[in-house]
Structure formats: structure tokens, C-alpha cells
């Protein structure tokens, strides 16, 4: 008999995974560039959260908007200064350049913060909510709520805001967008910034229960790729669904089979989806 606490824990973790992958999916969906520095940008955001927490005692949930804004600026600058120049180049040029950026991020954080894992301290780190027979980890509940709020805000922006609609127009038809006078390069930069802000917000939320160290990024970049491929590259709801599925599958595999085989099931799901539905669960056939 499955413990409902396990299911809930899996879903809560999955929601944060979803927000993290959302950034990657947004960037790819619009600009068609795969951000290989995704996890590294998240780690950089986590370090900003750690510094604010350690120096001034700021809760990562409070510093989240500032971290997201900072990462937006970084993403915007990166797109304007570097990625825009590579858009017309072959894919491997883009991959290698962003891989180089990721190495710069890792080396930079290693130089500044050293190799030790660091964490943010919050007064509610050990608390949990008890509802009926369910024990909900307060930190995860807050983080998952933050992730859902972030995803909803992004959806509202793309659905209703003028700039959001313009970005969607670029994603649907870049040439058409240029013909009607949209500043595509600026919109791409905003998109990259939004993707980076998403991952910055996810980093702030993860910081509530994950210690940060410079090499953390590789695992999360890989995880983000699994999630977006599972949900469908470029699909926002797909990224969220992928996150939830990965969180849930890890929880179930951990409980029923062996916790040390958790990751195996994420990769197993990935292979299954690639074989049966290569465009991902909610992706459009390419």
C-alpha cells in the first residue's frame, strides 16, 4: 500500500522541477536555442540567495523577486551580447558557446564561493503541516506554491500582456513578426531573460531545501532536459507536466523498488517517450 505522503512529496518536488524546466522550454520554444548554461544560471541565482540570507538574513522566498530580476538582466544581456549573434549559425556553434558559458559560470562560482556546499537558513526548515494523516513538509509546500505561482504568472504574461503576445507571434512565425514591425532581437532578449528569471526563481525555491555548490548545475541541467523532452520541447504545460511526472516517478520508484534507482526511472521514462512519442507528451510534431 502506497503511503500518500510519498505521492504528495513527489508531486511537490515535481512542481519545482517543472518551474526549473519551464525556463529552458520557454527559451527553446521561442528562440530555438538550447540553453546549456541553464543549471549554471540557476546555481548563480542560488548563490545570490545564499549571500542575501547569510549576510542580511533574507528569506529566499523574500529575495526571490530580486534574484529573478537579476537573472532576467543576466539572461537579457547574454542574449543581446552573445546568443543573438549565433542564431543564424549551425546548432553545434550555439551548443558549444553556451557550454563555454556554463563552464565560465561554474568556474566563477567556484572562485568566488569555493567548493563547499552552502545553505540558506530559514526558521521553518524543520516544520511540517499535519492535515489528517498527511504530513506536508512546509518548505516543500511553500516552494511548490511558489513554483505554481511563477508558472501562472508566466502563462498570464504570454496570454494577456502585449509583449507576451508579441513573443508568441515571434515563436509562431519569426518572418511574419519582422514584417509587421516587431523588434525580434529585443523580444528574443526578453524571452531569454524570462527563461533565466524562471530558473532564478526555481533556484530560490530549491534553496529552501537543497544546499548549493558549484557543481550542482550539471545534475539540474540534465534533469531540465529530461523534463522538457518528456513534456515536449517548447511546450510550457509540457514542462510542468514533465516536472510532475519525474517527481512522481522518482517517489514511486524510490518507495516500491529502490531509492538508489530513482534516477533510472526518469531516464527510463525519457527513452519510452522518445520511442513512442518523440515530440514529447504535449509537444507538437516537428
Amino acid at each position, binding site marked *: 500500500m502506497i503511503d500518500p505522503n510519498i505521492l504528495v512529496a513527489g508531486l511537490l518536488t515535481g512542481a519545482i522541477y517543472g518551474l526549473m524546466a519551464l525556463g529552458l522550454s520557454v527559451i527553446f520554444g521561442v528562440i530555438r536555442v538550447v540553453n546549456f548554461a541553464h543549471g549554471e544560471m540557476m546555481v548563480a541565482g542560488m548563490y545570490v540567495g545564499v549571500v542575501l540570507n547569510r549576510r542580511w538574513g533574507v528569506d529566499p522566498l523574500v529575495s526571490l523577486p530580486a534574484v529573478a530580476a537579476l537573472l532576467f538582466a543576466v539572461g537579457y544581456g547574454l542574449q543581446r551580447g552573445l546568443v543573438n549573434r549565433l542564431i543564424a549559425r549551425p546548432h553545434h556553434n550555439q551548443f558549444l558557446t553556451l557550454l563555454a558559458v556554463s563552464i565560465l559560470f561554474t568556474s566563477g562560482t*567556484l572562485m568566488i564561493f569555493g567548493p563547499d556546499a552552502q545553505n540558506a537558513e530559514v526558521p521553518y526548515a524543520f516544520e*511540517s503541516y499535519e492535515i489528517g494523516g498527511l504530513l506536508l513538509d512546509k518548505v516543500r509546500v511553500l516552494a511548490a506554491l511558489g513554483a505554481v505561482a511563477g508558472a501562472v504568472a508566466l502563462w498570464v504574461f504570454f496570454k494577456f500582456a502585449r509583449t507576451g503576445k508579441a513573443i508568441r507571434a515571434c515563436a509562431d512565425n519569426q518572418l511574419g513578426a519582422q514584417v509587421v514591425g516587431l523588434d525580434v532581437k529585443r523580444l528574443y532578449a526578453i524571452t531569454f531573460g524570462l527563461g533565466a528569471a524562471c530558473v532564478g526563481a526555481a533556484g530560490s525555491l530549491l534553496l529552501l531545501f537543497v544546499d548549493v555548490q558549484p*557543481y550542482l548545475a550539471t545534475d539540474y541541467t540534465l534533469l531540465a532536459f529530461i523534463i522538457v523532452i518528456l513534456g515536449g520541447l517548447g511546450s510550457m504545460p509540457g514542462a510542468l507536466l514533465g516536472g510532475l511526472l519525474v517527481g512522481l516517478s522518482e517517489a514511486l520508484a*524510490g518507495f516500491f523498488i529502490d*531509492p538508489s534507482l*530513482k534516477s533510472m526511472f526518469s531516464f527510463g521514462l525519457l527513452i519510452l517517450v522518445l520511442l513512442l512519442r518523440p515530440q514529447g507528451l504535449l509537444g507538437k510534431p516537428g
Partner: protein
Amino acid sequence: MAMNMSRRRFGAGVASLGALAAASPLSRARAQAAPLKIGVLLPRSGFLADIGQQCQRGADISVPILREMGYSLELINADTESKPEVARTQAEKLIREGADILMGAFESGATAAIAQVCEQNGVPFVINIGADPQITEQGYKFTFRNFPTSIMLGTSGLSLFNELFKATGVTPKTAVLMHANDTFGQSMLKGITALMPKLGLPFQIVETVAYDPLARDLSIEVAKCKAARADIHMVVTRNKDAGLMVREMVKQKYEPMGIISPGSPGMYEQPFLKTLGKYADYCISNVPWYDPKQPLAKTVEAAFHKAYPDFSFDLNIGFSFEGVMVCADAYKRAGSAKPAALVEALKTTAISNRLMVGGTIRFNEKGQNVDLRSASVQILEEKPTVVLPVENAVAKPVFPMPGWDKRG
């Protein structure tokens, strides 16, 4: 007279002069005057960085103290990055840079890799920490270990369970075993499974949960342990995972009678104590530990606290200190930094003025120190405290532990 000397003749002349010089008492004095170059290999970055840096502090603090004691030494440090393959290349680099002897490397995988390099290059290697029994079962001639094997750790650590139950008058019936799924965790698991029936422990292991020591989240693992409803929670942790585990136990209100390690790192480390605060209290690690009643331990502890006021004094410091001391002692007795001389001296090591719990440091024919014992180290008032064996203890054990909401 014309100078008629061939290159071969010249070479032979130099070689014989060299041999003469090496054999002379003057050379012996010179060799001793030059400090022994000890290549120290530790995981100072990567996932074991905290412990690696703690070991490094132990090695660093040893230099002035050992010099004061009349030893001549200097350290050349290298980082294994918590990766065996890096340990191998760093060992080769240190040998190229002129290290006379190597010391390290905390982790069994890295230690095994370095031992191979030392055998290939004929350079002596002293292990500070590294428990995989295979390392001293390979017939290596240059490897010496002043740390218990996982079998010794398991035997000594499990024996202390009975002492704990006897001292507190409480006998649990069931246990769950949560262990890191790596070389060390697997060898500990094998040891525990094999030794439990022989040692007559009163409880049964009703669930075994393996986990990735690099895991970022142990909520599922802890939930699985909680579901087993066992009396005690036995653990083989590595480092940060110990903190993650206890944090999850608190959140999930999982309150066994005790959290006890039969012999693994994690629950006495500084990050564990710092992150968990009062929740770190009452966790027990049955590990080789410094003897708080030994004079040398007191000296080293005082020097350590003066040099590193923000860090706690633990077994990583103690064994790294002793590792360097074993190297320096061999050099002092050998009177030479030549590998053969150092190896011969290491074989006859007999250091009784030590700081860890155990007898005189001696190595058997396999290069293993077999007279090492564990102590029960319980966190009391957020400090690691020796509670067993009685002769080394400075406080009484607390078991069963108070619930999470019954602490300060």
C-alpha cells in the same frame, strides 16, 4: 696528461662517488637535515570537500607540533577533487614533484587508486582514512594503513551496540539500516550482515534502504524507513547526506529510539552540527575517535582550537595527524628518505604516544594496523562526546533519545 675519460667511465665514477656518499655518516646527517617531503592527497573539493579540508587541517596542524617533537618534515598538498581518477593523476604528479612518501586520501576509491600508483612507482604510501579491506589485501609492499578496515569498523562498532544496551538497560528488537550506496556503504553493509549473527546482537534488521550519497533529497528514503516502524535507525552515511537524513526525520516526525552509525562519517562533522543544532543531539557514531584522556590528544586539540576556532576536533583531524606522524617517524628512524629505507622503517613502526583510541601503532605483514578500536561518540549539547567504552568516556550515553519536540 691528456684528459681521456669516456662518458661511460665518467658516469661510473659519478655513480660510485654517489654510492660512497650515500653510505657515509655525513650523507645520513644531510639526509636528515633535509625535511621529509610528504605528499598529502585529500578530497579538498567535490562532494567530500568538507571532510577533505578537515583532514587537511589535521595534516597542517601536525607540522609545527611534530617539528617541536623533533621530526623533520614538509608537506606538498594536492586535491583529489573527491574523484579516484583525479587522485591517481595527482599522486603521479606529486611523485614527479619529488614527494618521498604519500599520505591520504580519506576515500576508499581514491585511496585504492593511489596505492596502485605507489606500487608502480615504488613510493611508500600511508593511509590516514580509507576502510575498504581490499586495499591491504592486494599484497602491496608500499602501502600502510593506520585506520580500521570496514570489517574492523563493523566489528568494533557493532560490539558497542551491546555495550550501549547494557549501559542503558534498554534492548531494542528491530532496526532499519539506511546506507549510502557506494564502495564504503556496500562494504559496510556486507560487514554488518556477516557480523550481526556472530556478535549476538539482540535486534533484527527488518528493512535495508540504500541511497545515493550525492542525493539532494532523502524524503522518500526516510519515508520508507519510517514505514518499517523499527526500534532503532542504523545508518551508514558519508557527509552531507547525514544532515539531509535527520532533517527529513524531524519533518516526517520519525522518532526511533536512537540514530546509530556502526562506523561511518557524517554525524559528528561540523556541517551536521551547525545545520541541525539541537536536532543533532543524541545521534551516536561508533567510530575510531581521539582519546580525550591521552596527553597528546589534549595537546593537539588545544593547538587545533587555537588555529581553527570555528571547527570541531574530530577523527579526521586525529587520523590525518597520525598519518603524518607515522611518515615522519619512519623517516626519523630510517635516517633516509629512500623508499626502501622508509618501507623498512614503516614495517617496524611502534608509536605508543598517540592520540586515537587504540594500542601502539604497528603494522602487520599486510601493512594494516590491527590494534584500532572504536568509541561511541554521541552528540550531547551539540558537541561530539565520547560515551563508551567506559574507560575512555567523559559522559554517560543517552538512550532512547528524547523526541524531536522535547528538545530545548
